[in-house]
Protein backbone atom coordinates (compact mmCIF):
# COMPACT_ATOMS: atom_id res chain seq x y z
CA UNK A 1 0.00 0.00 0.00
CA UNK A 2 2.82 2.33 0.98
CA UNK A 3 4.77 1.56 -2.20
CA UNK A 4 1.73 2.19 -4.34
CA UNK A 5 1.10 5.49 -2.58
CA UNK A 6 4.68 6.63 -3.20
CA UNK A 7 4.49 5.73 -6.87
CA UNK A 8 1.14 7.41 -7.35
CA UNK A 9 2.16 10.54 -5.47
CA UNK A 10 5.36 10.82 -7.47
CA UNK A 11 3.51 10.30 -10.75
CA UNK A 12 0.92 12.93 -9.86
CA UNK A 13 3.62 15.52 -9.19
CA UNK A 14 5.67 14.53 -12.23
CA UNK A 15 2.74 14.65 -14.60
CA UNK A 16 1.79 17.99 -13.10
CA UNK A 17 -1.64 16.72 -12.22
CA UNK A 18 -1.37 18.26 -8.78
CA UNK A 19 0.61 21.13 -7.30
CA UNK A 20 0.78 19.69 -3.81
CA UNK A 21 0.79 16.35 -2.09
CA UNK A 22 -0.54 16.11 1.45
CA UNK A 23 0.32 12.92 3.29
CA UNK A 24 2.16 11.54 6.28
CA UNK A 25 5.86 11.10 6.96
CA UNK A 26 7.49 9.44 9.99
CA UNK A 27 7.44 11.65 13.07
CA UNK A 28 10.43 12.45 15.27
CA UNK A 29 9.16 10.26 18.10
CA UNK A 30 8.37 6.57 18.21
CA UNK A 31 4.96 5.56 16.89
CA UNK A 32 4.19 8.97 15.48
CA UNK A 33 3.71 10.43 12.06
CA UNK A 34 3.60 14.03 11.01
CA UNK A 35 1.75 15.65 8.11
CA UNK A 36 3.85 16.11 5.00
CA UNK A 37 2.85 18.90 2.65
CA UNK A 38 5.11 19.09 -0.34
CA UNK A 39 5.52 20.07 -3.99
CA UNK A 40 8.83 18.23 -4.28
CA UNK A 41 8.52 14.82 -5.96
CA UNK A 42 11.55 13.42 -4.15
CA UNK A 43 9.60 13.81 -0.90
CA UNK A 44 7.15 11.15 -2.11
CA UNK A 45 9.67 8.55 -0.85
CA UNK A 46 8.98 9.66 2.72
CA UNK A 47 5.25 9.01 2.57
CA UNK A 48 4.02 6.38 5.00
CA UNK A 49 0.84 4.50 5.85
CA UNK A 50 0.69 2.82 9.25
CA UNK A 51 -1.72 2.58 12.21
CA UNK A 52 -0.44 5.92 13.52
CA UNK A 53 -1.58 8.26 10.75
CA UNK A 54 -3.71 10.24 13.19
CA UNK A 55 -4.20 13.69 11.67
CA UNK A 56 -7.26 14.55 9.66
CA UNK A 57 -5.46 15.97 6.65
CA UNK A 58 -8.61 17.58 5.25
CA UNK A 59 -7.82 20.37 7.70
CA UNK A 60 -5.01 21.58 5.42
CA UNK A 61 -7.10 21.71 2.27
CA UNK A 62 -8.72 25.06 2.97
CA UNK A 63 -5.35 26.72 3.49
CA UNK A 64 -3.74 25.60 0.24
CA UNK A 65 -4.04 27.18 -3.19
CA UNK A 66 -3.85 24.96 -6.26
CA UNK A 67 -4.62 21.33 -7.01
CA UNK A 68 -3.91 18.90 -4.22
CA UNK A 69 -3.32 15.19 -4.01
CA UNK A 70 -4.38 14.15 -0.53
CA UNK A 71 -4.02 10.92 1.40
CA UNK A 72 -7.38 10.18 2.98
CA UNK A 73 -8.68 7.61 5.42
CA UNK A 74 -12.42 7.04 5.54
CA UNK A 75 -13.01 9.82 8.06
CA UNK A 76 -10.76 12.27 6.18
CA UNK A 77 -12.66 11.59 2.98
CA UNK A 78 -15.91 12.44 4.73
CA UNK A 79 -14.43 15.71 5.91
CA UNK A 80 -13.33 16.44 2.33
CA UNK A 81 -16.86 15.71 1.08
CA UNK A 82 -18.15 18.07 3.78
CA UNK A 83 -15.85 20.80 2.48
CA UNK A 84 -17.10 20.15 -1.06
CA UNK A 85 -20.71 20.46 0.16
CA UNK A 86 -19.83 23.80 1.70
CA UNK A 87 -18.14 25.02 -1.49
CA UNK A 88 -14.85 25.39 0.35
CA UNK A 89 -13.12 22.93 -1.95
CA UNK A 90 -13.70 22.22 -5.63
CA UNK A 91 -13.93 18.50 -6.31
CA UNK A 92 -11.89 18.74 -9.54
CA UNK A 93 -9.00 20.36 -7.67
CA UNK A 94 -8.49 17.43 -5.32
CA UNK A 95 -7.09 14.01 -6.08
CA UNK A 96 -8.12 11.74 -3.23
CA UNK A 97 -5.66 8.91 -2.56
CA UNK A 98 -7.90 6.59 -0.60
CA UNK A 99 -6.52 4.48 2.24
CA UNK A 100 -8.78 1.64 3.41
CA UNK A 101 -8.26 2.16 7.13
CA UNK A 102 -8.33 -0.72 9.61
CA UNK A 103 -8.47 1.74 12.52
CA UNK A 104 -5.84 3.78 14.32
CA UNK A 105 -4.08 2.63 17.46
CA UNK A 106 -4.68 4.75 20.54
CA UNK A 107 -1.30 5.00 22.29
CA UNK A 108 -2.93 6.10 25.53
CA UNK A 109 -4.87 2.83 25.62
CA UNK A 110 -1.71 0.83 24.84
CA UNK A 111 0.14 2.61 27.64
CA UNK A 112 -2.62 1.73 30.06
CA UNK A 113 -2.71 -1.91 28.95
CA UNK A 114 1.04 -2.40 28.90
CA UNK A 115 1.64 -0.33 32.02
CA UNK A 116 4.54 1.42 30.33
CA UNK A 117 5.21 4.77 28.77
CA UNK A 118 5.19 4.84 24.97
CA UNK A 119 8.94 5.50 24.88
CA UNK A 120 9.59 2.27 26.74
CA UNK A 121 7.73 0.09 24.26
CA UNK A 122 9.88 -1.71 21.71
CA UNK A 123 7.35 -2.26 18.99
CA UNK A 124 3.66 -2.21 18.15
CA UNK A 125 2.54 -4.28 15.18
CA UNK A 126 -0.77 -5.37 13.83
CA UNK A 127 -1.57 -8.85 12.63
CA UNK A 128 -5.14 -9.11 11.38
CA UNK A 129 -7.33 -8.41 14.37
CA UNK A 130 -4.53 -8.69 16.88
CA UNK A 131 -2.31 -5.90 18.11
CA UNK A 132 1.06 -7.17 19.27
CA UNK A 133 3.00 -5.00 21.66
CA UNK A 134 6.62 -5.85 22.39
CA UNK A 135 7.83 -4.77 25.83
CA UNK A 136 11.25 -5.72 27.16
CA UNK A 137 11.52 -8.44 24.54
CA UNK A 138 8.18 -9.96 25.56
CA UNK A 139 5.21 -10.02 23.22
CA UNK A 140 1.76 -9.13 24.47
CA UNK A 141 -1.36 -9.61 22.41
CA UNK A 142 -4.40 -7.34 22.54
CA UNK A 143 -7.61 -7.17 20.58
CA UNK A 144 -8.54 -4.25 18.35
CA UNK A 145 -11.49 -3.45 20.62
CA UNK A 146 -9.03 -2.87 23.44
CA UNK A 147 -6.55 -0.77 21.54
CA UNK A 148 -8.17 1.25 18.76
CA UNK A 149 -9.44 4.79 19.23
CA UNK A 150 -13.07 5.00 20.34
CA UNK A 151 -13.99 6.88 17.19
CA UNK A 152 -12.38 4.16 15.07
CA UNK A 153 -14.53 1.58 16.81
CA UNK A 154 -17.58 3.58 15.72
CA UNK A 155 -16.28 3.96 12.15
CA UNK A 156 -18.98 3.70 9.52
CA UNK A 157 -16.73 4.26 6.55
CA UNK A 158 -13.26 2.68 6.76
CA UNK A 159 -12.78 2.97 2.99
CA UNK A 160 -13.45 6.34 1.41
CA UNK A 161 -16.59 6.49 -0.69
CA UNK A 162 -15.33 9.43 -2.68
CA UNK A 163 -11.88 8.84 -4.17
CA UNK A 164 -9.75 8.98 -7.29
CA UNK A 165 -7.12 6.35 -6.54
CA UNK A 166 -7.76 3.45 -4.19
CA UNK A 167 -4.59 2.22 -2.53
CA UNK A 168 -5.74 -1.14 -1.17
CA UNK A 169 -8.55 -3.62 -0.76
CA UNK A 170 -11.77 -1.94 0.45
CA UNK A 171 -12.69 -2.82 4.03
CA UNK A 172 -16.27 -3.38 5.14
CA UNK A 173 -17.40 -1.31 8.13
CA UNK A 174 -17.59 -3.21 11.41
CA UNK A 175 -18.63 -0.65 13.98
CA UNK A 176 -18.58 -1.60 17.65
CA UNK A 177 -21.01 1.09 18.68
CA UNK A 178 -21.58 -0.19 22.17
CA UNK A 179 -17.94 0.10 23.22
CA UNK A 180 -17.38 3.43 21.53
CA UNK A 181 -20.61 4.97 22.84
CA UNK A 182 -20.15 3.77 26.41
CA UNK A 183 -19.10 7.15 27.80
CA UNK A 184 -22.15 8.88 26.39
CA UNK A 185 -24.54 6.14 27.49
CA UNK A 186 -23.19 6.31 31.04
CA UNK A 187 -23.42 10.08 31.08
CA UNK A 188 -26.98 10.08 29.79
CA UNK A 189 -28.10 7.91 32.66
CA UNK A 190 -27.15 10.52 35.23
CA UNK A 191 -29.37 13.42 36.29
CA UNK A 192 -29.18 16.69 34.32
CA UNK A 193 -27.59 18.53 37.25
CA UNK A 194 -24.91 15.85 37.53
CA UNK A 195 -24.20 16.07 33.80
CA UNK A 196 -23.82 19.82 34.01
CA UNK A 197 -21.46 19.40 36.93
CA UNK A 198 -19.48 16.84 34.95
CA UNK A 199 -18.95 19.28 32.08
CA UNK A 200 -18.25 22.09 34.52
CA UNK A 201 -15.42 20.03 35.99
CA UNK A 202 -14.09 18.98 32.61
CA UNK A 203 -14.07 22.50 31.26
CA UNK A 204 -12.39 23.90 34.36
CA UNK A 205 -9.25 22.31 32.94
CA UNK A 206 -9.57 23.88 29.51
CA UNK A 207 -6.72 26.30 28.78
CA UNK A 208 -8.36 27.65 25.62
CA UNK A 209 -5.44 26.75 23.40
CA UNK A 210 -7.96 26.24 20.59
CA UNK A 211 -6.17 23.09 19.46
CA UNK A 212 -9.59 21.45 18.98
CA UNK A 213 -10.67 24.24 16.69
CA UNK A 214 -7.46 24.31 14.72
CA UNK A 215 -7.29 20.56 14.21
CA UNK A 216 -10.88 20.43 13.01
CA UNK A 217 -11.41 20.42 9.25
CA UNK A 218 -15.02 21.53 9.75
CA UNK A 219 -13.97 24.63 11.73
CA UNK A 220 -13.00 26.90 8.87
CA UNK A 221 -14.42 30.33 9.75
CA UNK A 222 -12.11 33.16 8.76
CA UNK A 223 -12.81 34.81 12.06
CA UNK A 224 -13.96 32.71 14.97
CA UNK A 225 -16.72 34.11 17.19
CA UNK A 226 -14.47 33.81 20.23
CA UNK A 227 -12.15 36.41 18.74
CA UNK A 228 -14.89 38.94 18.12
CA UNK A 229 -14.78 41.93 20.43
CA UNK A 230 -17.91 43.82 19.44
CA UNK A 231 -19.88 42.20 20.85
CA UNK A 232 -17.60 40.08 22.94
CA UNK A 233 -19.45 36.79 23.06
CA UNK A 234 -17.04 35.02 25.33
CA UNK A 235 -14.24 36.31 27.53
CA UNK A 236 -10.77 35.34 26.33
CA UNK A 237 -9.56 34.19 29.72
CA UNK A 238 -10.12 30.52 30.39
CA UNK A 239 -13.00 30.40 32.86
CA UNK A 240 -15.11 27.28 32.74
CA UNK A 241 -18.26 29.17 31.80
CA UNK A 242 -16.70 30.70 28.72
CA UNK A 243 -14.79 27.53 27.87
CA UNK A 244 -18.01 25.59 27.90
CA UNK A 245 -19.86 28.18 25.82
CA UNK A 246 -17.01 28.13 23.30
CA UNK A 247 -17.21 24.38 22.93
CA UNK A 248 -21.02 24.26 22.82
CA UNK A 249 -21.17 26.87 20.07
CA UNK A 250 -18.30 25.22 18.23
CA UNK A 251 -20.26 21.99 18.23
CA UNK A 252 -23.39 23.73 17.00
CA UNK A 253 -21.38 25.43 14.25
CA UNK A 254 -19.93 22.17 13.00
CA UNK A 255 -23.21 20.25 13.27
CA UNK A 256 -23.76 18.52 9.96
CA UNK A 257 -20.08 18.87 9.12
CA UNK A 258 -18.55 17.00 12.04
CA UNK A 259 -17.84 13.45 10.95
CA UNK A 260 -16.85 12.22 14.41
CA UNK A 261 -13.21 11.86 13.35
CA UNK A 262 -12.12 12.34 16.95
CA UNK A 263 -9.31 14.79 16.18
CA UNK A 264 -10.50 17.40 18.72
CA UNK A 265 -10.34 14.89 21.53
CA UNK A 266 -6.98 13.52 20.43
CA UNK A 267 -5.29 16.92 20.27
CA UNK A 268 -6.72 18.20 23.56
CA UNK A 269 -3.73 18.78 25.86
CA UNK A 270 -5.86 18.45 29.00
CA UNK A 271 -7.81 15.38 27.87
CA UNK A 272 -11.32 16.78 27.88
CA UNK A 273 -13.61 14.06 26.48
CA UNK A 274 -14.68 16.23 23.56
CA UNK A 275 -15.83 13.28 21.54
CA UNK A 276 -18.65 12.77 24.00
CA UNK A 277 -19.93 16.12 22.70
CA UNK A 278 -19.26 15.67 18.99
CA UNK A 279 -20.62 12.14 18.93
CA UNK A 280 -23.83 13.25 20.61
CA UNK A 281 -24.27 16.09 18.12
CA UNK A 282 -23.65 13.62 15.31
CA UNK A 283 -26.42 11.46 16.77
CA UNK A 284 -28.83 14.40 17.24
CA UNK A 285 -28.41 15.48 13.62
CA UNK A 286 -28.97 11.94 12.42
CA UNK A 287 -31.99 11.42 14.66
CA UNK A 288 -33.75 14.71 13.88
CA UNK A 289 -32.90 15.20 10.22
CA UNK A 290 -31.55 11.79 9.10
CA UNK A 291 -28.43 13.59 8.03
CA UNK A 292 -25.00 11.99 8.01
CA UNK A 293 -22.12 14.36 7.45
CA UNK A 294 -19.78 13.90 4.53
CA UNK A 295 -21.52 11.01 2.84
CA UNK A 296 -23.00 12.60 -0.27
CA UNK A 297 -21.15 15.40 -2.05
CA UNK A 298 -24.33 16.49 -3.87
CA UNK A 299 -26.30 16.94 -0.62
CA UNK A 300 -26.97 20.47 0.62
CA UNK A 301 -25.29 21.45 3.89
CA UNK A 302 -27.48 20.67 6.90
CA UNK A 303 -28.12 24.25 7.94
CA UNK A 304 -28.69 25.51 4.40
CA UNK A 305 -31.54 23.12 3.87
CA UNK A 306 -34.88 22.18 5.44
CA UNK A 307 -37.88 19.93 5.06
CA UNK A 308 -41.47 21.14 5.31
CA UNK A 309 -42.22 18.91 8.28
CA UNK A 310 -39.57 18.19 10.89
CA UNK A 311 -38.81 18.59 14.58
CA UNK A 312 -42.28 20.03 15.13
CA UNK A 313 -42.66 18.33 18.50
CA UNK A 314 -40.10 20.76 19.92
CA UNK A 315 -42.28 23.79 19.14
CA UNK A 316 -45.43 25.11 20.77
Amino acid sequence: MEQKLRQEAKALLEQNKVDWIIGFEPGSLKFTTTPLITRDKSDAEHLVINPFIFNNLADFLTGIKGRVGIVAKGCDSRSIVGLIQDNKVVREDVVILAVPCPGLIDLAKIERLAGKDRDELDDITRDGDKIIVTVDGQKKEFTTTQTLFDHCLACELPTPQEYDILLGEPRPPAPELEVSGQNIAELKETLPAKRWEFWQNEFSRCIRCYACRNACPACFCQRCFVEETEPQWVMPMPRWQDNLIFQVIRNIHVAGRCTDCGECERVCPVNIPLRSLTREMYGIVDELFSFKSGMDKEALPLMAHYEQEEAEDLFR
Partner: protein
Amino acid sequence: MTQASEWKPKLLGFLCRWCSYAGADLAGTSRKKYPANIRVIKVPCSGRVDSLFIIKALRMGFDGVLVSGCHPGDCHYLTGNYRARRRIAITKKFLEYLGVEPQRLQASWVSASEGGKFAEVVAEVTEDLKEVGPNQLFSERKLDGTKTKTGS
Protein backbone atom coordinates in the same frame (compact mmCIF):
# COMPACT_ATOMS: atom_id res chain seq x y z
CA MET B 1 -44.05 39.05 52.93
CA THR B 2 -44.09 35.74 51.07
CA GLN B 3 -45.95 37.38 48.20
CA ALA B 4 -43.55 40.28 47.92
CA SER B 5 -40.30 38.29 48.13
CA GLU B 6 -41.51 35.46 45.94
CA TRP B 7 -39.00 34.66 43.21
CA LYS B 8 -40.13 35.56 39.71
CA PRO B 9 -38.50 33.97 36.68
CA LYS B 10 -36.87 36.25 34.15
CA LEU B 11 -37.71 35.23 30.62
CA LEU B 12 -36.09 36.62 27.48
CA GLY B 13 -38.19 36.55 24.35
CA PHE B 14 -36.86 36.81 20.82
CA LEU B 15 -39.91 37.74 18.77
CA CYS B 16 -40.03 37.88 15.02
CA ARG B 17 -40.91 41.33 13.77
CA TRP B 18 -43.62 40.14 11.38
CA CYS B 19 -45.62 37.63 13.39
CA SER B 20 -44.90 37.08 17.05
CA TYR B 21 -44.09 40.70 17.85
CA ALA B 22 -47.36 41.74 16.24
CA GLY B 23 -49.01 38.87 18.12
CA ALA B 24 -47.64 40.24 21.38
CA ASP B 25 -48.93 43.65 20.38
CA LEU B 26 -52.36 42.20 19.74
CA ALA B 27 -52.31 40.47 23.13
CA GLY B 28 -51.76 43.93 24.62
CA THR B 29 -54.33 45.83 22.59
CA SER B 30 -56.94 43.15 23.21
CA ARG B 31 -56.20 43.37 26.95
CA LYS B 32 -55.17 39.76 27.37
CA LYS B 33 -53.53 39.10 30.71
CA TYR B 34 -50.18 37.33 30.79
CA PRO B 35 -47.27 37.27 33.25
CA ALA B 36 -44.97 40.27 33.12
CA ASN B 37 -41.89 38.05 33.34
CA ILE B 38 -40.97 38.36 29.70
CA ARG B 39 -38.49 40.89 28.31
CA VAL B 40 -38.81 41.18 24.58
CA ILE B 41 -36.16 41.64 21.91
CA LYS B 42 -37.54 42.29 18.46
CA VAL B 43 -35.66 40.43 15.73
CA PRO B 44 -36.24 40.71 11.97
CA CYS B 45 -36.97 36.99 11.72
CA SER B 46 -36.73 33.95 13.96
CA GLY B 47 -33.96 32.90 11.56
CA ARG B 48 -31.91 35.78 12.98
CA VAL B 49 -31.69 34.07 16.35
CA ASP B 50 -28.21 32.64 16.71
CA SER B 51 -27.57 29.83 19.18
CA LEU B 52 -25.07 32.22 20.72
CA PHE B 53 -27.89 34.61 21.68
CA ILE B 54 -29.61 31.82 23.55
CA ILE B 55 -26.56 30.68 25.44
CA LYS B 56 -25.43 34.22 26.13
CA ALA B 57 -28.84 34.96 27.63
CA LEU B 58 -28.52 31.96 29.95
CA ARG B 59 -24.96 33.03 30.77
CA MET B 60 -26.21 36.50 31.69
CA GLY B 61 -28.64 34.99 34.14
CA PHE B 62 -31.96 34.79 32.34
CA ASP B 63 -33.96 31.87 33.63
CA GLY B 64 -35.33 30.99 30.26
CA VAL B 65 -35.37 31.93 26.60
CA LEU B 66 -38.38 31.93 24.31
CA VAL B 67 -37.91 32.13 20.56
CA SER B 68 -41.05 32.82 18.64
CA GLY B 69 -41.66 33.28 14.94
CA CYS B 70 -44.13 32.85 12.12
CA HIS B 71 -45.77 29.49 11.54
CA PRO B 72 -43.85 27.26 9.12
CA GLY B 73 -44.76 28.36 5.61
CA ASP B 74 -45.68 31.88 6.68
CA CYS B 75 -42.22 33.41 6.95
CA HIS B 76 -41.96 36.90 5.51
CA TYR B 77 -38.59 35.89 4.10
CA LEU B 78 -40.02 32.54 2.95
CA THR B 79 -37.53 30.20 4.63
CA GLY B 80 -36.22 31.98 7.73
CA ASN B 81 -38.28 30.04 10.22
CA TYR B 82 -37.44 26.70 8.62
CA ARG B 83 -33.79 27.46 9.19
CA ALA B 84 -34.51 28.65 12.70
CA ARG B 85 -36.32 25.38 13.34
CA ARG B 86 -33.27 23.28 12.52
CA ARG B 87 -30.96 25.48 14.51
CA ILE B 88 -33.16 25.69 17.58
CA ALA B 89 -33.89 21.97 17.47
CA ILE B 90 -30.21 20.99 17.65
CA THR B 91 -29.47 23.69 20.22
CA LYS B 92 -32.30 22.47 22.43
CA LYS B 93 -31.32 18.81 22.17
CA PHE B 94 -27.66 19.55 22.71
CA LEU B 95 -28.23 21.75 25.76
CA GLU B 96 -30.48 19.09 27.18
CA TYR B 97 -27.69 16.55 26.81
CA LEU B 98 -25.27 18.88 28.60
CA GLY B 99 -27.64 19.07 31.53
CA VAL B 100 -29.60 22.26 30.91
CA GLU B 101 -33.25 21.75 31.83
CA PRO B 102 -35.26 21.52 28.58
CA GLN B 103 -37.73 24.10 29.92
CA ARG B 104 -35.12 26.83 29.71
CA LEU B 105 -35.17 27.01 25.94
CA GLN B 106 -38.59 27.05 24.38
CA ALA B 107 -39.85 27.94 20.97
CA SER B 108 -43.24 28.65 19.52
CA TRP B 109 -44.99 29.70 16.37
CA VAL B 110 -47.28 32.67 16.97
CA SER B 111 -48.87 34.57 14.09
CA ALA B 112 -49.86 38.22 14.12
CA SER B 113 -53.48 37.26 14.72
CA GLU B 114 -52.78 34.98 17.67
CA GLY B 115 -52.71 37.43 20.58
CA GLY B 116 -54.44 34.83 22.71
CA LYS B 117 -51.91 32.15 21.88
CA PHE B 118 -49.05 34.50 22.73
CA ALA B 119 -50.52 35.18 26.17
CA GLU B 120 -50.97 31.43 26.70
CA VAL B 121 -47.44 30.61 25.61
CA VAL B 122 -45.90 33.18 27.93
CA ALA B 123 -48.05 31.95 30.82
CA GLU B 124 -47.08 28.32 30.18
CA VAL B 125 -43.39 29.05 29.79
CA THR B 126 -43.43 31.12 32.98
CA GLU B 127 -45.09 28.24 34.84
CA ASP B 128 -42.44 25.84 33.48
CA LEU B 129 -39.68 28.14 34.66
CA LYS B 130 -41.21 28.46 38.12
CA GLU B 131 -41.05 24.69 38.29
CA VAL B 132 -37.35 24.43 37.40
CA GLY B 133 -36.38 27.39 39.56
CA PRO B 134 -33.67 30.02 39.21
CA ASN B 135 -30.96 29.63 36.62
CA GLN B 136 -27.74 28.82 38.43
CA LEU B 137 -26.08 27.07 35.54
CA PHE B 138 -23.23 29.51 35.23
CA SER B 139 -22.84 30.47 38.89
CA GLU B 140 -19.51 29.99 40.53
CA ARG B 141 -19.25 27.24 43.08
CA LYS B 142 -18.09 28.25 46.49
CA LEU B 143 -15.61 25.99 48.24
CA ASP B 144 -18.31 24.44 50.42
CA GLY B 145 -20.18 23.35 47.30
CA THR B 146 -22.98 25.94 47.50
CA LYS B 147 -23.49 28.33 44.66
CA THR B 148 -23.42 32.11 44.42
CA LYS B 149 -25.37 33.88 41.77
CA THR B 150 -23.23 35.73 39.26
CA GLY B 151 -24.01 37.56 36.09
CA SER B 152 -21.67 38.18 33.19
